[in-house]
């Protein structure tokens, strides 16, 4: 077969192979990405045409108090979840990795299981656990604060409790990654350190922590991006309440687009989250690349 002929066949095969993906990717990803950017400069309702209004939506955002609440809550939620879940996951991973055989498998299963549950199952179970009248955790809360608390209707408790539920739900993923990281640390390093008389405290800070850092950094950044996209748990546990105190950015996007019929303004809100996550992702990429080079 001639070289040109072969080349033509290769090109045709490539075209056929990428066509299905490219079609789906263009229509349902690239086009909506363009569309949401374009919509954010219009006053369009959810369904129907709007007119170009320049930066008016973004100006409106600056004066929208609910938007500041939402942004703050996203930030607050990140504080409440990212580092705590990583620390908890690290403790669990260290403990599980010390166990052996079936015991290890059983414990890991128990810690990982919540991760596979649908979010609405998780929120239903926790709504019941924390039910104001009959929730099994209310005696515990009453022991600390003196009286039962309707946690998802209380402005101070709502975000921390959503964080607790979220950590319970998603922590298994982090445990798994950290256990994989721990397994990749060569065992003879510990043996050598033990021979040199290193305490287990020293062994952790001198061996485990630095060698595990790439995975820890990965877990931290994955969590950061994941938790910024918070919507489901807020919608299902508190619906943004009480008095809009638990609104987050995606919750406000949902409200503007699907309840108040402001497609353009909702798109501008989405663009802010878009921007934040792109910046975080670029930083993450740089961070992980620096980590890998070391």
């Amino acid at each position, binding site marked *: 077969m001639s070289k040109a002929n072969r080349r033509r066949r290769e090109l045709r095969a490539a075209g056929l192979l*990428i066509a299905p993906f490219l079609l789906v990717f263009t229509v349902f990803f690239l086009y909506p990405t363009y*569309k949401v950017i374009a919509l954010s400069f219009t006053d369009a309702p959810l369904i129907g045409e709007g007119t170009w209004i320049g930066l008016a939506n973004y100006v409106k955002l600056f004066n929208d108090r609910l938007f500041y609440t939402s942004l703050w809550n996203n930030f607050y939620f990140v504080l409440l979840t990212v580092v705590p879940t990583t620390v908890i996951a690290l403790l669990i991973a260290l403990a599980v990795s010390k166990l052996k055989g079936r015991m290890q498998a059983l414990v890991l*299963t128990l810690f990982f299981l919540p991760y596979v549950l649908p979010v609405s199952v998780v929120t239903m179970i926790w709504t019941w656990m924390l039910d104001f009248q009959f929730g099994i955790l209310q005696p515990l809360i009453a022991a600390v604060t003196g009286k039962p608390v309707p946690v998802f209707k209380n402005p101070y408790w709502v975000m921390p409790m959503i964080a607790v539920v979220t950590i319970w739900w998603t922590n298994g993923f982090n445990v798994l990654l950290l256990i994989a990281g721990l397994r990749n640390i060569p065992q003879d390093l510990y043996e050598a350190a033990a021979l040199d008389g290193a305490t287990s405290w020293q062994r952790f800070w001198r061996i485990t922590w630095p060698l595990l850092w790439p995975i820890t950094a990965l877990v931290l950044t994955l969590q950061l991006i994941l938790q910024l996209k918070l919507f489901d748990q807020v919608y299902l546990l508190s619906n943004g309440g009480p008095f809009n105190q638990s609104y987050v950015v995606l919750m406000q996007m949902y409200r503007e687009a699907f309840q108040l019929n402001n497609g353009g303004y909702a798109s501008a809100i989405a663009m802010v989250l878009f921007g934040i996550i792109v910046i975080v992702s670029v930083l993450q990429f740089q961070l992980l690349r620096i980590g890998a080079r070391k």
Partner: protein
Amino acid sequence: MTAKRARNLAFSAIVLIAAAIWIFPLYWALTTSLRSENRIISDAGVLIDELNFSAYIDVLSTSKLPLWYLNSVGTSVIITVIVLLTGMMCAYALSQLRFPGRQTLYLLVVASFMVPVPALYVAQFVLMNDLDMVNTWWGIILPQLIVPVVVIVYKQFFDAIPREMREAVLLDGGGEFVLLFKLYLPLNWGITAALAIITFISAWNNFFWPFLVVTSEDMMTIPVGITQVTDAFGVAYARMMALALLAAAPVIIGYLIFQRRVTEAVMISAGVKG
């Protein structure tokens, strides 16, 4: 040595207790679901002391749970099959063939990781509405077909296959499709299973998108459907928990059966080798 053994045993016991506390909410849901509504409110022993299945029977007979199972299974299976097929084909071209725009396409796929998909939901909803796909399976399915990690992972694994193997097939007169489905795919069944599992789980558990695109109860998936029932129940804890557990049963059972594969799949999705 006995002192050390005792210490190990104590340590195991503590970790096991911690794990039991961690899983307690799920256990408590089970206990609650097996009681009569009256007993739940009157006294709350922690042990399972009653095997009352009336809540389960009630939920199964009054809600549309069977229909939601069907919608969830149908949409998740279709999503998984299409995502794997299109992703694998695209990855094969990116990995093995030379064509103009190859670098650009790969960069686009990598860059798409950065885009928070929910930020596109408004535009995707408008699109689905224009295509008249609101309240249909395709409305649920189409926007969920973008899973760039599948392309990236397949490409990495295809890159690792030695070139000599493909030359042999090409000399035998096989084309690129023969190569992909008779050589590259069979060599990567493990990774295919892993990618199928993560794609399926995330489609099955997706709440936000199906919640937006489906408003008719008959078209709902499980995660969305069960939230409708709770609104209708009012105060009915046993039924609520029975419903939650029936909704969770397929993933829990699936996870327990394919445990190793699932954990492996989760790690691959994060780019970590187990």
